[in-house]
């Protein structure tokens, strides 16, 4: 139920924001600092987790297209995003993952956006409870808590969202569908589907991101 309330609020916020005047679209590089984001990161939606990330914008392309009566203003952003995720398979595994994402985001004049990103990373999966170790003769030699295994992770994600302004501060609400593949998992690979709902904000502190190349067409 809580999930649907969040989803409805999210859609309402985007719709209301869509009514703003598009003739004065601000730059999506809102200030000189790197945007930070936090999101709910649910494996198969319901196996809960969180994701924390920081964007480093690399390139911005701005385009103005004149159509009959309106001018269409689009902004495209190439970014790299280191992120950290944590999620659980209840009573089975806890997963920590470090990723770097390279993404391409396209904003329209109402600051609604779609994005696509590729990622590579490292996933560490921690066994719940004690792990018992068997020697080559089949005897149990001991046990330990917090045992884990590591995997190489690659992924692709598709996202959408929009920017709203609260007291003139830009807040981005977004959702993302992530498809990850872990290798070498067992004797093959493991695909994972994760749905993400998050918020990105523009702090007035932190790492500066002033070297964004901007191309205006």
């Amino acid at each position, binding site marked *: 139920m809580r999930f649907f309330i969040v989803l409805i609020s999210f859609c309402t916020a985007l719709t209301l924001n869509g009514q703003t005047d598009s003739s004065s679209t601000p730059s999506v590089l809102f200030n000189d600092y790197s945007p930070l984001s936090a999101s709910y990161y649910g494996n198969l939606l319901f196996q809960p987790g969180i994701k924390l990330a920081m964007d480093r914008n690399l390139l911005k392309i701005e385009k103005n297209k004149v159509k009959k009566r309106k001018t269409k203003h689009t902004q495209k952003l190439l970014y790299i995003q280191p992120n950290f995720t944590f999620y659980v398979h209840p009573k089975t595994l806890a997963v920590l993952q470090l990723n770097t994402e390279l993404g391409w985001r396209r904003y329209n004049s109402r600051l609604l956006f779609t994005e696509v990103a590729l990622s590579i990373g490292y996933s560490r999966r921690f066994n719940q409870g004690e792990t018992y170790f*068997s020697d080559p003769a089949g005897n149990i030699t001991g046990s330990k808590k917090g045992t884990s295994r590591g995997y190489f992770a690659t992924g692709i994600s598709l996202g959408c969202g929009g920017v709203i302004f609260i007291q003139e501060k830009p807040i981005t609400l977004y959702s993302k569908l992530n498809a990850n593949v872990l290798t070498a998992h*067992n004797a093959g690979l493991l695909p994972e589907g994760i749905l993400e709902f998050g918020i990105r904000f523009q702090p007035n502190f932190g790492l500066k991101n002033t070297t964004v190349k901007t191309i205006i067409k």
Partner: protein
Amino acid sequence: MRLSYLITGIVIFTFFGCKKSTDLTQIEETIYVRSNGADMPVYLRGRVGSGIVILVVHGGPGGNGLEYRAGKYSEEIERKYGVAYWDQRGQGMSQGTYKKAEVTVDNMVFDMNAVVNTIKLKYGFATKVIALGHSWGGTLTAKYMVTDDLQYNLDGWIEADGAHDIPRLNKAAIKKFKSESKTQIALGNNTSNWEGILTWANAIDTNNITNENGGEINKKAGEAESWLLEDGFIQASEAGGIKNSPLFGPTNLLTSTVTGMQTSRLLYNEVEEVALTNALKKVTIPTLILWGKYDFVVPLALAYDAFNTISSTNKKIVIFEKSGHSPMDNEWEAFAKEVTAFIEVL
């Protein structure tokens, strides 16, 4: 003064009221066993304080341990005994890194032994461990029974519709399809469907059953059981049990399905050649054989095969008259009763 007595009374009442009323010997714990590159979860549930743990060896290949907790029989059994739901190598929520060549029945027997040894180490060497293998789990436990002296690590074997001999299974399944088709056609039940099965079964050369035919047997078995269920020959499973939510539960649906499919594919050729009927002579530990009369996946003929071959002096066979491949679901009460009766005299 009276007020202070009243307050004291309420405090004492509240304190004792907060005490958990659950049986403290009922456990809910997850442990892992690391063996030959695989980390396999073992979900421990039930009353371990009984000194008896039933190790559930799931079907498939490609299933998972907690699937077997969904039936009502598991509630009954967990009330009395400890139950270990083990996710085998490359199935369920098992993780690890190993080569494809390491996905073998022999390695899985080794894994099973590591799980048995872990249970004994954790709960004491006096703990009785009984293996309950169903379907593919029956193949794996049968192989365990005949490998070296491993059977003596167990206190009993419950074989439920287990596939200990695939070539023999395939032949018996075709025979069963033919005979049941004729019976059902004569009774006028689902006639066109059974006629289709009969035509298909008659076209198979039983001296040369291919892997493709093997796959078809599984599929047709499911269909046949559904018609028998419709016509009242098989009893419908009763709602209830301790179901795990596919989205919120310990077994992630996608992980379990994908890893299971990969492992099933890797084992396929080896499993198709497993033929352990003669080797079952080695089995001397107490054995209970439980089978559904209308099992087309692993036909009844294999139950008698196993029963007649094993050397155990304490052995019993029970045929469930209104069950298919999973009597623990179709006739859960009778199934749980037989399991309990077997364990109580060990």
